[in-house]
C-alpha cells in the first residue's frame, strides 16, 4: 500500500513538473529563439504599403474590384469584412462572426457543391467575357481547405489578365510581368505546384496604378 501512495505522489509531481516544462518553458524558449532569428515570419509575415499594414504575404484576401486578381472560393471570405458586416442586419444576422478558418465541407456527391460551382462559373464568365468555359481551371472555382489560400494556379491568373487590363488601365504586358514576378515555382524544382500569390500580385498592380496616375 505504501508503494501505491508513493506512486501517486510521483505521478502528481511528474504531472506538475511537465506542466511547467512543456506548457511554459518550452513555448517561451521557442518564442525567444523565433523572435530573435526570424522576426518577420514570427509575427505573421505582415506586408506594408506606405508604412501601413495591408495584409500578410501568407494569407489570401477577398477582392471585389475588377482591377484585381480574384482568389479561390472561401467559405469565410478570407476573414475580410466591412463595418456593416459586424452589426446585425435587418434579419438579425451578423455577416462576420469573428476570425476563423475552414471550408464548406461539401461532399463530392453533394448537390450544393455543383450548384455553388455553376453559380461561380456564370458570374466569372460574365465578368470575363473573353474567356471560354473550358479554359477555367478547377482551382479557381473550388474552395480551398483553409479559406485563406493565398495562391491560384498560373492558368487561373492568366485568364483574368484581360479583365484586369480593362479595369485598371495597365497594359496586358505590365500585368503579365506582374504575374511572372509573383509566380512561385515548385520547391527545389520538384515539390508542390506552380502557383501565383495573388495578394502580392494585386499589391503590385495597386502600386503601378498609383504610379501611373
Amino acid at each position, binding site marked *: 500500500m505504501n508503494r501505491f501512495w508513493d506512486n501517486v505522489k510521483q505521478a502528481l509531481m511528474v504531472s506538475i513538473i511537465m506542466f511547467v516544462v*512543456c506548457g511554459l518553458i518550452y513555448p517561451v524558449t521557442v518564442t525567444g529563439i523565433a523572435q530573435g532569428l526570424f522576426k518577420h515570419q514570427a509575427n505573421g509575415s505582415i506586408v506594408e504599403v506606405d508604412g501601413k499594414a495591408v*495584409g500578410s504575404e501568407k494569407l489570401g484576401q477577398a477582392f471585389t474590384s475588377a482591377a484585381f486578381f480574384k482568389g479561390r472560393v472561401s467559405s469565410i471570405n478570407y476573414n475580410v469584412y466591412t463595418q456593416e458586416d459586424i452589426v446585425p442586419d435587418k434579419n438579425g444576422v451578423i455577416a462576420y462572426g469573428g476570425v476563423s478558418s475552414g471550408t464548406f465541407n*461539401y461532399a*463530392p456527391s453533394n448537390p450544393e457543391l455543383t450548384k455553388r460551382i455553376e453559380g461561380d462559373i456564370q458570374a466569372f464568365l460574365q465578368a470575363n467575357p473573353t474567356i471560354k468555359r473550358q479554359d477555367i481551371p478547377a482551382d479557381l472555382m473550388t474552395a480551398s481547405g483553409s479559406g485563406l489560400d493565398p495562391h491560384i494556379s498560373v492558368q487561373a491568373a492568366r485568364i483574368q489578365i484581360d479583365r484586369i487590363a480593362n479595369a485598371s488601365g495597365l497594359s496586358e504586358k505590365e500585368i503579365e510581368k506582374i504575374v511572372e514576378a509573383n509566380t512561385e515555382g515548385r520547391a527545389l524544382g520538384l515539390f*508542390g505546384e506552380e502557383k501565383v500569390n495573388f495578394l502580392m500580385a494585386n499589391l503590385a498592380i495597386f502600386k503601378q496604378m498609383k504610379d501611373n496616375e
Partner: protein
Amino acid sequence: MWQIAIVCIIYLPLVILTGHYLFRVTMHKKTWLDPFMDKVDHVIYKVCGIKQVDMTGKQYVLSLIISNAFMVFIGYILLRIQSFLLLNPNDIENMEASLSFNTIISFMTNTNLQHYSGESGLSYLSQMLVIIFMMFTSAATGYAACMAFCRRLVAKSDTLGNFFVDFVRVITRVLMPISIVVAIILVSQGAPQTFSANQTVQTIEGKMQDIALGPVASLESIKHVGTNGGGFNGANSTTPFENPTVISNIVEMLSMMLLPGACVVAFSLMVAYRKKKTIFGKQGLTIFAAMGMLFLIGLVTVYIAERAGNPLISDLGITQELGSMEGKEMRFGVAQSALFTTVTTAFTTGSVNNMHDTLTPIGGMVPMFNMMLNVVFGGKGVGLMNMMMYVLLTIFIACLMIGRTPQFLGKKIEEKEMKLIALCILIHPAIILLFSALAVATTSGVAGITNPGAHGLSQVLYEFASASANNGSGFEGLADNSTFWNVTTGLAMFFGRYLTIILQLAIASLLAKKMWHSDSVGTLKTDTSMFTFLLVAIVLMIGALTFLPALALGPITEHLQIHS
C-alpha cells in the same frame, strides 16, 4: 509522383537513425546528449521523488493511469476558467462542460479530435498549458507503454522498467529536442510564434482583415512529432500559418512519420540485442515491411482517386487538370495532399492539410480504412503494440494450419493470451460500429450529419473510426459540437486508448513470466518475407471482414453514384 517517392526515400535513413537513438534511450545506453541531459533528468527525479526502481507490469499500468488522471484534472480546470487567466489577448470565453470533457479526453489520449475552433475557443495560455502540455505527455505515455510492452516480450521477468523514468526520458531526450528544431524550421517558413494579439489590417480595397496570430509554431512541431494532430487554428494544417510552404509540409510529414517508424526499428534492435550488431533487426524488418506495404497500397489508391478528380465537376465543363481541388490548398496540389492524407491516418496523427470531407469517395475511404485497421505504423508506440496483436494472431493461425505449437521469441502462446488478444482486436471495431449504429439510430446523432446520401454515413463512420483509433482527423462537415457527439466520441477515445493499453500490457506481462524455449526445426519462423505476406493478408482479411459492409454503404455507394 516523383515528389511522393522522394519523400519516402528521405524517410528511410532518418527513421533508422532515430530508431537507433530511441533504442539507446530506452535501454539506458550512452548517447551524446547524456552529459547535459543526465543533469536535467536528475533534477526532475529529485523534485518528483522518482526512485528509479523496476516495476511490475501492473504497477507500470497503474502509474500510467494515475498520472494521466492528474493531467486530465489539471487540464479540465484550466479550460473551464481560461477567461479569468493570463495570456488571453483575444478575450476568449470559458469552455462549456461537455466540450471541455471531450477536449481533455481527446488530448490526453493522443487523439486530438477537436470539436472547437482554436481561433475562437482557446486562449493562448490554454493552447500552451493544456494543449502543448498534453501533446508532450500523451505522446510520452504511449511511447512508455510501448517500450514496457517490447521489453517484456524479450525479457525473462515481469519486473523491469520504471514508468516515470521512461516518461521523463522520452520527453527530455526525444520529444523536446526534436520539437524545438522542427518549430524553428516552421517559423523560418512563415509560421507565427508570438504572444501578441490577433491583428486587424486595412486592405487596399479599404476593408478590414483579421489575422489570427499566436504561438503557432511551438504547438505545430509537437503536434506532428508526437503524432497528436490537433491544430492551433480550426482548419488545422491547411491554414497557411500552420503549414506555410511545401517545405513545411514535408517537414511536418516527416516529423509525424519519424517516431512511430523508429519504434519498430528500436524494437527490432531489442530483439536482436546480444546476438550481433545490426542496422535493422530481422524480426522488426518483417513487421516494418508489412506496415510499409499496407501504407503504399493506401497511398497509391488515394493518389489515383484524387488525380482523377470529381466527375460531377468535369461535367460542368471546366478543366480539372490539377485533379480534385475542392478542399485542397493550391501550394500543395493533389500529390502533396494525397501523401499527407495517407501519412496522417496511417501514423494516426490526425492533422490535415486538405479537408477529408471533400475527398473523392475512394480517396476518403483510404484514410478511413487506415484508421479502422489502426496498425499501419500507428500512433507513437501504440501502433506497434496493435500490430503485435496481429503478429501474435498470425502466428497462432499459421501454426494451427501446419500443426505446430505457436511460439514467438521463445515464448509459447497459449489459451489465456489468445483470449486477451482476440478481445483486444475486437474492441476497436466494436467501438466504431456500435457507436455508429447508435448515432444513426438517434435523432441527436443524425442531427450532426451535414451531407446528404451515402456520404452522411461516411461522416459518422469516419468520426468514430478517428476517435477509437485515437487519430483525431475528421470529416469536418459533421456538426459535432453537441452533447451527443461530445460524450460519445469522448467515450470512444477513452476506451479505445486505455482498454487497449491495459490489455496489451497484460498480455506482455503474461508472456514475460513464461519459460523461454529455444527455437527448434519445427518452430514457425517469424522473420521471413513469407511471414510478412501472411501478416498483411491476415490484417486485410480481418479488416475487410469487419468493415466491408459499412464501407459498402458509405464511400463505395457514393463512388458508384457520382460515376453513374
